[in-house]
């Protein structure tokens, strides 16, 4: 029976967390992609490892360490981006290398490396109640702020200079968005894994951009693709005995390919219709 999957508490939690994170990561992703920061997910999730190491070494919660370092890394990206506006991707690359470098050096001092692995790969099917509550609160905050700042985020990602001239508090909007992204990535890296966060932040958005006809529908399609990838990924991995994280990423990529195909088909049909009309 297909409903078997919902009989297991760990799968129930996985589905709830999966749905919540898919929605907020896809929303943040639409802004991230248009600010040309597609690799921010990788940079932040890997930087959070340095925070885990600091937490383990200094004897406080690795989760707190991860969130803290993630926020610092995200603010660094924002600061570098401001200095070199034409090279957003450079800011991400610099932070990624420093984050991994720091994590590499610090990990040498950490005796128990299993903690490290759980942070790098996470596990959506091994979520405890505390993590569930954290994800629930985080999702509510992110969704609320995203809706409140919808117009501001649109304008800042569309044309930051014009937005500033029109009176948008660009600094505040960028700061709030950066901190939200950092906290989301660090929490999601712990629960669903760095791989899934990096993938859901950009791949559903890329797929949505193939078929959406406006900014609003780009967001809606991104959320839909992220949700479908996660829900299908969890179900398929459960029954086929696959790794859930990898399955979710591959499904997201499959949806992207399907969207590219659909777009190509649509433009070919449009082209032939155009030719028929011009022949008449």
């Amino acid at each position, binding site marked *: 029976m297909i409903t078997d999957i919902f009989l297991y508490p760990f799968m129930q939690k996985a589905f709830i967390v999966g749905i919540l994170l898919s929605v907020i990561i896809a929303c943040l992703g639409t802004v991230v992609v*248009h600010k040309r920061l597609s690799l921010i997910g990788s940079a932040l999730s890997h930087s959070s490892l340095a925070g885990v190491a600091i937490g383990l070494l200094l004897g406080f919660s690795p989760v707190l360490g991860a969130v803290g370092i993630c926020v610092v890394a995200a603010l660094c990206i924002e600061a570098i981006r401001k200095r070199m506006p034409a090279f957003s991707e450079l800011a991400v690359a610099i932070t990624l290398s420093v984050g991994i470098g720091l994590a590499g050096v610090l990990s040498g001092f950490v005796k128990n490396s299993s903690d490290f692995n759980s942070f790098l790969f996470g596990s959506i099917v091994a979520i405890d109640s505390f993590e569930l509550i954290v994800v629930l609160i985080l999702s509510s905050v992110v969704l609320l702020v995203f809706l*409140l*700042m*919808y*117009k*501001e985020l*649109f*304008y800042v990602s*569309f*044309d930051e200079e*014009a*937005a500033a*001239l*029109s*009176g*948008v*508090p660009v600094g505040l909007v960028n700061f709030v968005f950066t901190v939200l992204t950092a906290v989301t990535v660090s929490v999601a890296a712990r629960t669903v894994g760095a791989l899934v966060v990096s993938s859901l932040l950009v791949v559903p958005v890329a797929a949505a*951009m193939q078929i*959406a*006809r*406006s*900014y*609003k529908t*780009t967001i809606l399609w991104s959320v839909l693709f992220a949700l479908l990838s996660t829900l299908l990924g969890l179900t398929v991995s459960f029954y086929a005995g696959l790794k859930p994280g990898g399955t979710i990423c591959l499904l997201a990529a499959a949806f992207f390919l399907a969207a590219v195909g659909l777009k190509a088909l649509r433009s070919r049909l449009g082209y032939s219709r155009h030719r028929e009309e011009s022949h008449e």
Partner: protein
Amino acid sequence: MANNDYAIEVDHLSFGYSEKLFLNDVSFRIEKGDFAAIIGDNGSGKSTMVKLILGLLLPVRGTVRVTGRDVSGSNRPSEIGYVPQNSGDSVARFPASAEEIVLSSLYRQIGPFRFASRKHRAIAREAIEQAGISELIDKLPSEMSGGQRQRLMLARVLANRPEILILDEPTVGIDADAVDRLLAVLHDINIHSKTTILMVTHDIAKIASFANRVLCLSEKHFSENDLPEGTVVHIHPLMHDHVYEHIHCANCEKSHDPDKCAACAAQKNGGRK
């Protein structure tokens, strides 16, 4: 003297870095309702002049007044709508509909952290219509031609109903038909909405039939061959003794002759001084 009949007054303006001046003692006036053009060679200071008028640059000497108010070095005067150079290209890949893009420019009217209402949508639609791209309201910039994107950028600015419209090289990179359509739209806005227009261009042949005032920021004389006689205001940026100004409508033999020129007549009938 500040005079509210003038949209833009530039008095003895100089600008440059260290000892090299790009603009030296430039003076000119643009009246309310004018369709003015700044022409000149590459590097003659056309875009610099626009930035000085927008208050984005601080002059070394002299003043810039917009509707009688000194703007030198201040923020952009709110009565000016500005369409920067190549602004159409910068949005070409952004996945938002024309309506969403125009709506975003109504930020001040909508207010922070609020959603656009039906009233704001109507304003956006009206601006899109004014820019002559009503049929593209649901299109993405990537589905538009260069000229259509340029008019989308124009619609963004028009939504805020500016008294003065400044466009920096709006005709660059678009084909001749698109240039004609853009200029026709601008002419219409100039005549019917009484919006003062200042346009930086080097498309002298096209501008000749629309502009009633041409400012030449170059030592080279364009007037003899390219423009109807008496149209050009010569401003020689590097020679003090050659600064002079006169005002002509491109269609008129004398300054603003409403008996002979439809554009002047329309402006006069519209209550213009």
